[in-house]
Each structure stands twice: as C-alpha cells, then as structure tokens.
C-alpha cells in the first residue's frame, strides 16, 4: 500500500534536515504504529506525505500503490486514497462542517469519475456516521472546528475519515486530548474501518490507544528515521521504559 524509501526532507525556508533517510512499508490491510520522542519528525512525515508546502524532498521516494505521491498535488493524493487526521485540525470560520464534508466527498468522487452524492444520501450517511462518533447535529452545522474542544476536533477528523473512506489513513496523535470514552469511540470508528484493502499509520505517544487499535507493526522513530521496527510488544516496552534504552542501543 504505502512504501517510503530512504526519504530525506529539509525545510524549504532554512537549511534544516528533518527526515534523514526514513524507510517504511505498510502493506494493505495492516495497522502500523509510529512512536517516537517529541520533535523526531513524525508530523513532518505525515505532512510531507500529504503534500503540504514548505518542505523539500532531497532524496528518496514515497509511493501509494505504486504511484509516486511526491509529484502529486495534495488533492490528487486525497483522491488517490490518502488521508491525514491532523494533529492540530484547522479552523475555517463561516464554513459549515457539513458543507465542508460534502464539498470534500464530492470533490473526491468527481476526481474518481463517480457521481456526486445526492443531498438526501449525503445527509443520511453523515448523520449515521456522526451518531456513531457521538457528534451532535449542532456540531455538524457549526463552522469547521471553530470553537470545538480538543476532543471534538479529533472526533471530527475521524468523521471526515469515515466519510471519505480513504485507503491509506494516517492518524497524527488522534488520541491526544481524548477522554477515555472518546478514545473508545474513536477506536471503534477506526476498527470499523479496518479492512483487507485499507491500511493505517497511527502516530501516537501512548500504548493506551494501541490497546484499542491493535497494531500489526510498531515503528520507533527518532531524529528523522526509523530506529527500530517490531510487534505490539515494542509499544509496551516504550510505555514502561521510555526511549532511553532504545536510543542508546541505536547509538
């Protein structure tokens, strides 16, 4: 599904290398977790994959189902099936959440040559999915993320993900700021989306989320590359011991 090979990324504005030869492969149907200390480049990786401005890829590649992601516009990547649940979801004043969702869904359908959803079908779908995530009709009408609590913003990201049905879902610290119940709702939402032709890359600091969303593989990232890759037990180890030993081990 997603294949990242020897990715080197620096900031466009200054001479600062953030990703330093990162390689990673997420096969179809799998859930991979990335853990790593603050500032190791996890969000940068997710932004570079989704096409945000401000970064320069100096070396390496990233492909989604064999197609090079790095040459595509952000909206083309989305249409190709990539989705990023933002660590810090963006507020868009004056634009209704529902309008935003619908515009996004139909833009992607159009890009894929599908019919747009009728307003009736769309409403039915969004109401059902919102109810699953305990997102109130009021939140659907309010402007995108404006005045949403931290946890509401994260749930809203998952609602977008559920509506857009991407094939490769990247979740950047979606668990941060969620209360215990919300964590369960979000996890249930993600688990419901798990399927043989959909993959997840879950960035998190806490083992807690991984209790709900069982990863197939856990990667430890530090200083712009993958330090170690293992099974779910790696997350448990981090939770108990921190990164000290892992970092020392790698030198």
């Amino acid at each position, binding site marked *: 599904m997603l294949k990242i090979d020897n990715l080197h990324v620096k900031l466009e504005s200054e001479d600062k290398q953030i990703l330093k030869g990162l390689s990673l492969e997420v096969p179809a149907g799998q859930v991979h977790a990335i853990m790593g200390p603050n500032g190791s480049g996890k969000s940068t990786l997710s932004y570079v994959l*989704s*096409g*945000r*401005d401000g970064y320069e890829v100096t070396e390496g590649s990233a492909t989604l189902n064999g197609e090079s992601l790095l040459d595509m*516009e*952000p*909206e083309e*990547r*989305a*249409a190709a099936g990539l*989705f*990023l649940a*933002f660590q810090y*979801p*963006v*507020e*868009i*004043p*004056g*634009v*209704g959440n*529902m*309008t*935003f969702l*619908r*515009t*996004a*869904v*139909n*833009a*992607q359908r*159009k*890009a894929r040559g599908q019919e*747009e959803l009728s*307003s009736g079908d*769309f*409403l039915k779908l969004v109401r059902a999915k919102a109810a699953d995530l305990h997102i109130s009709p009021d939140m659907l*009408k309010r*402007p995108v993320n404006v005045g949403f609590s931290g946890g509401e913003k994260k749930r809203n990201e998952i609602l*977008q993900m559920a509506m*857009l049905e991407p094939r490769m879902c990247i979740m950047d610290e979606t668990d941060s700021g969620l209360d215990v119940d919300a964590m369960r709702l979000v996890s249930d939402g993600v688990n419901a989306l798990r399927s043989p032709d959909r993959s997840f890359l879950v960035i998190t600091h806490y083992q807690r989320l991984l209790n709900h969303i069982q990863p197939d593989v856990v990667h430890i990232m530090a200083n712009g590359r993958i330090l170690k890759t293992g099974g779910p037990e790696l997350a448990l180890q981090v939770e108990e011991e921190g990164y000290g030993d892992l970092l020392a081990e790698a030198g």
Partner: protein
Amino acid sequence: MNATTDLDVREGVDRETVEAVQNMGSYKYGWDTEIEMDYAPKGLNEDIVRLISAKNNEPEWMTEWRLEAYRRWLTMTEPKWAMLNYPVIDYQDQYYYARPKSMAVKPKSLDEVDPKLLATYEKLGIPLKEQLILAGVETTEDGRADGRRVAVDAVFDSVSVGTTFKDELAKAGVIFCSISEAIREHPELVKKYLGSVVPQSDNYFATLNSAVFSDGSFVYIPKGVRCPMELSTYFRINAENTGQFERTLIIADKGSHVSYLEGCTAPKRDTHQLHAAVVEIVVLEDAEVKYSTVQNWYPGDEEGRGGIYNFVTKRADCREARAKVMWTQVETGSAITWKYPSCILRGDESQGEFYSIAIANNMQQADTGTKMIHLGRNTRSRIVSKGISAGRAQNTYRGLVTMHPRATNSRNYTQCDSLLIGDQCGAHTVPYIEVKNTSSRVEHEATTSKVDDDQLFYCRSRGMDEEEAVALVVNGFCREVLQALPMEFAMEAQALVAISLEGSVG
C-alpha cells in the same frame, strides 16, 4: 422551513459555488446581443437632454428638471477624494441614449417584445415569464413551497423592455413600472419624491444622472401593504460607447414592506463604459425596505482593459418613526466602483443596516462603503463590510457614521473585515465618525487578514482543488453578508464570489 430543509438548501448553495468554479470561464455574461439600435448623437448638451426627455414623452416639468440639473452639472467638477485611479473621462465622447429600434413604439405587453431581447434575458437567466423562480432549490411536489415569485423590470441600455406581474401587483395596490412610465402615469408621486432623497445637486455623478437618466424602475407600496412578491430590476448594458444612467425611486408608505433586488451585467468590451445611477428610497412610518444588489458589471480583463466605471449614488431616507432599511450589496464587477449606499435615519427609532461584500480582483478598484446619518432619537445602524482583494486590485472601505445632536441614545455598530489574496493587492479602511451628543455610542471593529495557507492545505488534503478551497474559505469569510441576502440571490452571489476570484491563486 424546518431545520433539515434549511440545511439542505444551504448545502445546495455551497454545491452551486463549487460547481460554478469548476464549470465556468471567467466572466459569464460577456457576450453581446446583435440588435439594431437608435442612438442619440454622441456627446452631451442641452439638446441631448431635451431629446432624452422627448424620447420618453415626458411632460414639460420633467424636461425643465433635467435642464436645471444639466446646467448645475456644468458648474461642478468630478470628485477626486476616492482612492481610485483612472484616466480623465471625456463626457463628450459617448452616447447618452441607446434604444433598440424595436422599442421605438413601446410594446403593450411582453408578448410584443422583440424576441431577440427576450432571448437576451433568457440567456442571462432572468425570467421574463410570470413563473416561479426555483434557482437551485429543489422543486417540491406542488412546485410552490420553495419557489418564490419575483417580478422583474428588465432594462436594456436606455429603456425598460418590460415589467412582469404588473397586474397582480396592481391588485395589491403596488405600482411597479419603469420610471419613464411613472413620470407619465403617476406624476404626483414622482413630483413629490424624485430628488427628495438625492437632490439634483447632490454630487457630480448624481447631477449628471438627473440630467440624462433614461430609464429605471419605480416602486410605490401603499400604506400597510406587504408586497406579495419580491421585486427586481435587471440592468443590461449592451451598446458600445454608451453610458447607462438609470434612476430608481422606491416609496414605501406607512407600515408597508418590500424586498427589492437589483442585478447588472454588461458585455466584454475593450473600452471603458460609464454607468452613473441614482437610487432613492423613501421609507415612511413603520415601513421596511430591503434592497439587495448583485453588481456584476464587466470588470475588465487581467490587464485592466475595458470594464465599467461605476459611479452610483444610493440613499434611503427613513423619513418617519420606526422606518427601517437594509442595504445588502455584493459588488464583484466593474473596473471602478464608487458607491456608498446610505441611510438617513431621520425618524425616531428608525434603523439602517448595510451588509456588503466587495471583491476586487486583477486590476479592479473599489471604493465603497456607506453613510449612516443619525438624525432621530434612538436610531440604530449596523454595518458589516467584507472586502476581498486579489490580483493587483485595490479595495477601500469608506464609511461615515454621524450622530447629530438630536439623535440621542442612538447606536452604531460597524464591523469591517478585509481579506487579502496574494501580495500585490491592497485593502484600505477609511472610517469617519462624528458623535455630537453624549448619549449615543459608536462601535467600530476592523480586521485585515490574508487567506490562510493552513486552511487551504486542510481543504486540499480533503480533496478540493485550490480554487474550490479558496472559494470555500472566502465564502466562509463572507457568510454573515451572504446570509442577509434573499435565498435566490445568495446562491448567485456565492457562485459569483467564486468566479470573481478565478485565477487569483496558483
């Protein structure tokens, strides 16, 4: 309407926007109609003024009124205080009257109107048949619930082509006709009110208009009548090198209520064209007038070639107690816009509102805003202005709020937001505030921001292309004003916002 359908409709509105961006070229109304025209000779002098008056079969008093204005105009100079830059206008190098030959004998009904003219309005999407307007709103079973009827006065260059729903309006006592017809048929009303809000000598362009106005709309809503449908005038400039000078007079008698819409378009031409209109609104005791404009005159091309010079004087006089007026404007067109729809709050407890979206892209220049003149006690006014600048455009908000000594306990609230797209455009805010009593309060808030890259990236990461993303964000920025528009207009306006900004990113 319940909450669900409301949501549906709003959804529909935004879908339209997005489709508009995807499907349309830049200026959609830039085509022209090939039609034989009668022109007055080029240039301006007393004979031309007399000729315009004669073409309209006007009574002597009207001719004199025009000539008085013309003589006054000769003594005046063009105002230069606006933040607008344009070459000197040669007032002798244009036509002041252009009429389709087929309109020489005024058709008795729309059935007799030249099919070419009817086709023009059809192509513009303006219904001249007496039918429901269902702009984008999904039709319900009986076809009525969501559809609203709108009566139209269609003005083509210098003449009114026809007015719909006249009979039905007449039954309610509402007079809706062209101003030239009103001068002939309702002289007592015209004499009493014409020039009573915008005097002949008000300003250079209004005075010019008083001398040479050719047509426009006239509305009278009698006491206590709620106008049974929305009224609208659609102005189309077609002829080349011809100025359009329309005059609109609306009188809302005591306790009456009307919502009036105005739309305007013009063909793409390489030369600039002059448009100097006057709109006067008289609002009497407890009456309410809502005046909405979508101004979409041809804005000129990317390099600033062609486009309309739009100098407009619009003013409402809340003459008696508790009169209420609301101006809503969406200004997307014209190379130059000079326009300040104003409210004179003379009656105690009268209210004025001004909601505006002004978009300037490419080489467009807009200097627009409002005046709220508080004369009566306990008067209220509210100004919400959203200015968007893109390309190399300059966009100025100019607003005046005055509280006169007698206007005790009055309030004004002004919010003035500017949004910049790109770094070659400009936004300026010029508020003038005068408070001459101690019990009144004026609040002014202003913000200037740039279209936010994070917002655009967020939208694009969800699959929208850059233009859709900009349209969505900008529509969000304008939401408060869009919501003040009647539904049909709101859809058109949203689409227009998107189209006007085409090419402003990327």
